[in-house]
């Protein structure tokens, strides 16, 4: 092979390798991408049953029930709809009723969201920005009176 041919071969091999890496990367990416939903999105049948997704909303006051062992049931709500959530495990330190959280899991046939991870971060005033934003209506206002006192306007600032 001449020097030029060698160089072309090296470049071809390099491109092939990079292409392969990119293909692998994007496949892994698409398989592990999770969309964020609100209870309203979920009930509007926007999410496929059983698909892994993130659900964000406020924990409804008085809805938390501890069951056998580490089983926990609570209701996650936005301004319009509620979704019952089932979780087995330890809730994070900052989990409190009335507060915004994000649960990772999937929607089961009975309409129950089964979470395998519950996230609540920062201080008690903190709300995940996605939750805060999705709670805001089209006009930038919210109508979350039933879910006081955690309102996106005051909490996310």
């Amino acid at each position: 092979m001449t020097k030029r041919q060698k160089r072309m071969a090296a470049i071809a091999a390099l491109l092939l390798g990079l292409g392969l890496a990119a293909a692998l990367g994007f496949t892994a990416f698409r398989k592990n991408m999770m969309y964020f939903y609100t209870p309203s999105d979920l009930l509007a049948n926007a999410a496929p049953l059983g698909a892994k997704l993130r659900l964000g909303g406020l924990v409804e006051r008085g809805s938390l029930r501890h069951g056998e062992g580490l089983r926990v049931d609570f209701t996650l709500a936005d301004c319009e709809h509620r979704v019952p959530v089932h979780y087995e495990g330890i809730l994070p330190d900052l989990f409190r009723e009335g507060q915004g959280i994000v649960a990772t899991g999937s929607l089961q046939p009975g309409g129950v969201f089964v979470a395998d991870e519950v996230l609540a971060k920062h201080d008690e005033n903190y709300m995940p920005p996605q939750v805060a934003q999705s709670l805001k209506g089209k006009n930038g206002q919210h109508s979350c009176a039933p879910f006081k006192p955690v309102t996106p306007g005051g909490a996310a600032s």
Partner: protein
Amino acid sequence: MIPELGHFALILALGVALVQVLVPAYGLWRRSGRALAVATSAAQTQALLVFTAFGCLTWCFITQDFSVAYVTANSHSELPLVYRFTAVWGAHEGSLLLWVTILAGWTLAVSVFNRRLPADITATALAVLGVVSIGFLLFMLLTSNPFERLFPVPEDGRDLNPLLQDPGMVIHPPMLYMGYVGFSVAFAFAIAALVSGRLDSAWARWTRPWTITAWLFMTLGITLGSWWAYHVLGWGGWWFWDPVENASFMPWLVGTALIHSLAVTEKRGLLKSWTVLLAILAFGLSLLGTFLVRSGVIVSVHAFASDPARGVFILGFLGTVLGAAFLLYAWRAPKLVSEGELRLFSREGLLLINNLFLVVASASVLLGTLYPLVVDALQIGKISVGPPYFNAVFIPLFAPLLMLVGLAIAVPWKRARIGDAVRHLRVPLVATAVAAVTLPLVFQGSASLPVIAGGFLGFWAALTALQEPWRRIRAKTSWRAGLASVPRGTWGMTLAHLGLGVWTLGVVFVSSFSIEKDVRLSPQGSVELRGYEFQFQGVESRPGPNYDSDYGTVLVEREGRTVATLHPEKRLYHATHQMMTQAAVDHTPLRDLYVALGEPLDNGDWALRLYYKPMMRLVWLGGVLMVFGGILAASDRRYRPVRATETAVATQGVVA
């Protein structure tokens, strides 16, 4: 008075930084040696001013001056003294001041240690560092002044974020910033090389110790951060692929690539423009990391600023600095001609492949970190990519990389023969295979294919690392002469690669054999975990300096003998009303027993996390070995031009 002094020092520092940039630039243009020399004194003056400002803020924290808004937000009268020091960088404004202070420190070091370099190179490098400093000083003075006063003065502060009240947090941020900012020195030298058009092995020799030093601090910072997360976040994880962790991991990967390509540039005069590109990228990723953390665009434990103006400023700065650097690169890099031909099967060729893997790995982290942000910004939807993506991408990238490590060490520079490589690697190959099968069988009683494969990679990197000193020692007649003949740089490389192998073993064992159990236990109840009996003795209340604690006691027994008494805690901080979990860990080199309190349930029952994690220590040990490797490599005597000349003169004297 003191806060105003600090503020004033920062404004002066900005002025001096302008001088540090403009006068040397004039000097380069007019070829005036006197103008170039100004860079050094300006850099030193700027450092003094910035250190003064940092001292002023620290003073405000120690004396609890609650008239300063930043002190009020991050301190409290009950806060212990140690944490008053660390509270200085506990939030946005102060950590920016820390950034600038460390940058001033690096600039000072460059101005002191590089006096023997050509005047134009030193001046250009200092001017580039000055530009970076101007950007951050402006950012601080315009959007986030740490010395802002409050009126009326509040009676007490709002306390430091309890997550940060931990010994690990005392040194994690400064170490990490030493790394982030340290890459600015490599960047400055790269720009100086582009401006002057001179890039030879001497240039690579100046740049190497700076880059290695930045890299070792970064390694230490990341290791400490991981250690902190393991102990304080209470989930027993050591790496979460959190965007902020990724922000530090990307420059680390590119920095690692840079260290290796600098070696090629120094020894063989090859890959020059590639090395310069890596130096620009490493610093660019450091800036991007700062942007991600400081702008509040990501949801994370670290993201405390959420002011859009700040994000826009940093993004603009990032765009300007990198845009200018890439333009200069596109214009000047074609002038950097390699001094020979590169063969793929030689040490430099294998190092180039290693570089490709590292850069692709970094790019895949970048994709996973930025893509969700871009999608959100374009309002297409809200998505997130979890750890499975990163794990799926990293395993196929890291496996060949670890194999390359052993191969590249066994192969000489310039050209290599496959037969020689096979002969050199026979013994390590067999030893690796035996060890990879034996270790899991002995300690865990079982061995699956992934564990053997992972163990093989770890042992391969560790055992082949020992070859180079081994070969050098065998070449001498006695052990002592042999040991003395191994240069520090070689020891550094050996330790760092050994650390990589040890780290890999730790990761493989922890991820394959960990047992994690979340249980509900009543007082005196017990549960068994891999031969260990965890007996829950209950929880009592105890007061701390600025918190109240639920202080748990768990007795761990094995075959009737008490192995450990663990005290996991749940702390409620007074000022912030924040709950914190403090895990308790009993560790030996072979396993960690990890207990964290979950939440109180009815009838005095508690939810507890009980973990058994084999060889967890190896993950940190690997990081520490890499750090020591870096220290040895950076202190190699051939980077000290003064001593080297003296020795040369001495030898000549003897010969004459």
